[in-house]
């Protein structure tokens, strides 16, 4: 098959590179979602520990 003219070939080349970029962006988006969940878990853990410490301070005899 003869080589495609530049205007025709450009579409295919752009499509291929855009596929790569899209895959990369989807991966980063998924990973950033996981990172946000991790951050939320850490915040919750921190809050629960603070509550526990406050409870201990209020009632020092009742230690879990």
């Amino acid at each position, binding site marked *: 098959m003869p080589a495609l003219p530049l205007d025709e070939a450009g579409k295919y080349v752009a499509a291929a*590179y855009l596929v*790569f970029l899209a895959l990369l962006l989807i991966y980063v988006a998924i990973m950033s979602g996981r990172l946000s969940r991790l951050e939320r878990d850490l915040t919750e853990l921190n809050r*629960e*520990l603070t509550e526990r410490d406050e409870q201990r301070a209020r009632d020092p005899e009742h230690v879990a």
Partner: protein
Amino acid sequence: MHGKGLRTLALLTALTLTAAYALVFFWTPNEADQGFVQKIFYLHVPMAIVALCGFVAGGVAGLMYLRTRDGKWDLRAYVAIHLSQILACGVLITGAIWAKASWGHWWLWDEPMLVSFLIVFLLYATYQVLRFSIEDRERQARYASVFAVVAGAFVPINFAVVRMAQSYVHPRTLGTTTGGMPGEMMLTFLIALVGMALLFVTLWKYEMASKSAGAQVRALRLRLLGDDDALPRRSAAPML
């Protein structure tokens, strides 16, 4: 400690890939037969090589798990295979685009290179399913490692056999049958290959760091609060 050096590695990856693709479009000459379409080669082939190497690396990590029974090796194998699957998906799509532009067909079933790569991709597509089907963590890791080793050994054998086979259409990369590439093309290709390998390592380290941090949060939660929610649920991904 997988996050160590991640920023430097990410910067190096971005720099190498940018340089490689700048060279592709502004410096490397168009190929005589295919013209501008051949620029897909600098993306498609490095992705394919890195994906196949990632599958083999997953096999090596699986072997290490079987030898040591250390869950970290199972996680390393899982992440390597998972990333290779993403790259392999990219290889199949970019390959189909290149095929359509150069041969006039999206796919050719009589091309050993294409079909063998699809077989490898489909083989590894069962890896996640296998993992998810086994609830017991230790058994899951053991079976998945055996799979990774066997499939990892199959990849280079399959590749070598296909290269030795007679092919009518698919071009040979780094082969001697059709002659070597000109200097500019080879240099650009090698930089793109290094960039793709760095991207793989960066994403591998990133995902390892993320999974390791998640495991530490779960362990901390279980230790401090005795929270049952922190216990690992059924998942295809290994839990440290």
